[in-house]
């Protein structure tokens, strides 16, 4: 096995978070390398031929593919080193500033030593056995990402009569994608009483194409001998339980699962990183450092984001964290203050802050509300929002000047309703 000189930082995952982290690491003068398992850098946005990428980062509305091209150009300009077709087999933690990354490549196993690590390997899609759908297990069931890969990377049409499960942005965009290629999109099925994606996407992807959206409905059963033939749909009550007698069938040959993403962090769990059950990603401090010193995480491996701009910011922040870690031989802190989830906050990162620096919070609410304020009462922070929805991440920054007044050993994020109706 080949051994390599030690790195300051190794970045695992060549999607937007990893690329951004690699660029920032290089700018900060760290000896770094980016590791990607596929044959090309770019990650999931490569297969996203719809716009909505880079409005903040590049100040332009780009497709995913265009966004990645521009990001890669930036990366090449400053000569970031990277490995593709390289699979991280395991991580060995030797000490707080010594880690070994074992990487499988077609030249052999490489053992890469590093002081810090930024993990940005994205998320995986929830599959059918993680839903409550029972019945047959015929062909014709695809995750949204798989269908998107087939259509937009390899030019293959999965089927012609499509039912989509999940009305998050991914589900909505795939509904339009199928409709654009002449498929009959029979329905989009959403368990919650409200759509999971942006309102803009509901209009542009469903209403414009006359695609029915069934809110408060679930698919109970899939039937089909060889390929999907039909699905049985049922209404659900307020506690999301199917209501007897409301079942009906929809004929289709294709079922697309857009039922959400789960951070892809198995390898971090194996080195003892503590996981937050709410985000299903690691518990992190304000530099996105996990509970294993010198191991940082960014992008969808940290928390499922809905904008690539946030992902890129997290990658850059993790790189800055790694830089500070190396300069100080560990993360300097006078004590970490926990971030508590208050009213109507389902998930939030970071989990700990120092109170010494600016902090960007990423949070999601439990339930949709209108006319609210996001508050951090300990520092008297308030921001008025017209509406909040679980589908839309709340992002805001607490400047260090404001945090300087913090006396409390904790901070609380909460959403407060301003008036009724």
């Amino acid at each position, binding site marked *: 096995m080949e051994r390599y000189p030690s790195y300051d930082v190794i970045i695992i995952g060549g999607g937007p978070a990893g690329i951004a982290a690699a660029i920032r690491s290089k700018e900060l003068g760290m000896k770094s390398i980016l590791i990607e398992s596929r044959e090309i850098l770019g990650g999931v946005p490569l297969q996203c031929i719809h716009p909505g990428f880079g409005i903040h980062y590049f100040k332009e509305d780009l497709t995913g593919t265009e966004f990645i091209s521009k990001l890669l150009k930036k990366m090449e300009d400053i000569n970031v080193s990277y490995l593709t077709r390289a699979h991280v087999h395991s991580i060995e933690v030797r000490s707080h500033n010594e880690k070994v990354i074992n990487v499988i490549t*077609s*030249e052999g196993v490489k053992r890469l030593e590093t002081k810090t690590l930024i993990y940005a390997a994205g998320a995986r899609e929830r599959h059918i056995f993680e839903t409550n759908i029972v019945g047959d297990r015929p*062909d014709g069931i695809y995750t949204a990402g798989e269908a998107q890969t087939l259509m937009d990377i390899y030019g293959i049409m999965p089927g012609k009569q499509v039912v989509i499960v999940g009305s998050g942005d991914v589900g909505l965009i795939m509904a339009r994608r199928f409709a654009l290629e002449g498929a009959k999109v029979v329905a989009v099925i959403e368990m919650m009483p409200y759509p999971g994606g942006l309102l803009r996407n509901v209009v542009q992807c469903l209403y414009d194409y006359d695609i029915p959206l069934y809110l408060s409905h679930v698919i109970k059963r899939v039937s089909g001998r060889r390929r999907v033939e039909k699905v049985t749909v049922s209404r659900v009550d307020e506690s999301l339980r199917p209501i007897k007698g409301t079942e009906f069938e929809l004929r289709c040959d294709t079922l697309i699962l857009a039922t959400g993403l789960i951070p892809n962090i198995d390898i971090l769990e194996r080195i003892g990183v503590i996981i937050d059950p709410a985000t299903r990603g690691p518990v992190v401090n304000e530099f996105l450092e996990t509970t294993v010193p010198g191991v940082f995480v960014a992008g969808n491996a940290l928390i499922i984001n809905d904008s690539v701009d946030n992902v890129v910011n997290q990658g850059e922040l993790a790189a800055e964290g790694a830089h500070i870690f190396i300069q100080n031989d560990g993360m300097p802190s006078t004590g970490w203050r926990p971030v508590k989830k208050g009213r109507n906050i389902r998930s939030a990162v970071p989990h700990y802050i120092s109170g010494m620096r600016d902090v960007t919070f990423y949070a999601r609410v439990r339930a949709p509300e209108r006319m609210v304020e996001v508050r951090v009462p300990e520092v008297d922070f308030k921001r008025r929002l017209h509406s909040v929805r679980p589908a839309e991440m709340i992002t805001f920054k607490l400047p260090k000047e404001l945090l300087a007044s913090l006396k409390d050993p904790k901070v609380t994020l909460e959403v407060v309703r301003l008036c009724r109706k």
Partner: protein
Amino acid sequence: MRLRVAIIGSGIIGSCIARVLSMYENFSVTLIEREFDVGWGSSKANSSVIHPGHEEDPERHPLRAKLCKEGNILWRTWAKELDIPVKWPGELMLFFREEEGRARKYIDLAKRNGIPSVKIVPREELLKMEPILNPDVEGAVYAPTTGVIDPFEAVIAVVENAVDNSVKLLTETEVRAIKIAGGEVKGVLTNNGFIDADIIINAAGIHSDEVSHMAGVEPNFKIRPRRGEYILFDEDVEIKPTRVLHTTPTEKTKGVYGLTTIHGNLMIGPTAEDLPPDFKERTSTTNEGLEYLWDKALALFKELPPRSKVIRSFAGLRAEPPDGRWLIRAYMDPWGFINVAGIRSPGFTAAPAIAHYVLNLIRTEYDVKLIKKDRWNPYRRGIVRLADKSLHQIDSLIRKNPDYGEIICYCKLVSKAEILEAIERMRKIGIKTITLDGIKYRTRAGFGRCQGAFCRWKIALLVSQYTQTPLHKVVIKKSPYGIGDVKVLLREG
């Protein structure tokens, strides 16, 4: 002259019979399978347990009792010769206070069947053996000879070895009729033409009643499909028993197992639900079935992993014969027809013993003087798996073949080299359509927690490339991956 033998069905029963017959000069064997691949019926969706034989009543089911016991012993040799993943953890049939009497019955059955070392383990000892058990348990019947096998690989391994010893496999071949003339079988008519045969062995599993009726025998023999549902958990859950756990069977049910599969997943199942006779394809899962399993599993364990750790649920159909009685018989009219029908549990366990039993039937009933082949190869090696190797071993594998360095399935660590080897092996045994499911069962790619969301398209690309098939025509399980190129619907209107 060699006897031409046609075996209908390449499940575990037909495949084991093929292997045993391949040891002799007397036979020229054709194994006929209607699916794309071998072992796609009951053989692939079962408990994966190699039973000791202490549950069989020797009076009611003497054949089951005898062949189960023999099969348990034979699998130990077969698994070694054929490189089939197997382990022998033993089994604990748990009982609660009111169940003790029923459980003790198995001690008696074990004695009568000659199953060694079956004994009662009291509560304290039991909780030491398996600390994750439900603490309310009273005791258990311990049967140390229970095994756990990889059922997919078992069938594949047996067929690979049989083909290596001159058995011919015909997949995608469905039997339509059996030709009989002058009181003797003459052959089978299939969708792929007529196959001459002097002996026809019916190992058609859930469809074995239909095949028997084609030969005009056992008109009252009717198989009932009995559905068994299962839940499979991720490898990383903490509740994983060392031994096979089993609830005490009742009058109505055979009990539910909680076990760690050969690949390290916690598995709960099966249910036992009798379906109408014509529901022979109904391998659907149900809410009721899965809830029943949760309920039963709660009796086995002190706690269960969260539901979010379930990575798969599935169901299989067992071929339930009248009175649970296996029908293994060689007929004089028509001469040459042999039923190996209605082989319900413990059929997988007994399969190698059933094969020898059938050989003996041929020898005695049809008066065949068996001649062993001089050159019969008992061995078969499995696919080399990166997941079983150390980093140093992986490194040297890659240096010999760089395809080992290209990882296709992240969850189960499966490389391109393994996928290509699976394709190669499928072709070698005569499989015409390379399916993604066939590759999954051979390599385990797609068996992990993402269930193929990351790797299915990559495997499809490899199949497309190495079999010169357009990507959309690559078959997943039973139908193509896509319907055409992405503009096909717009073009065709």
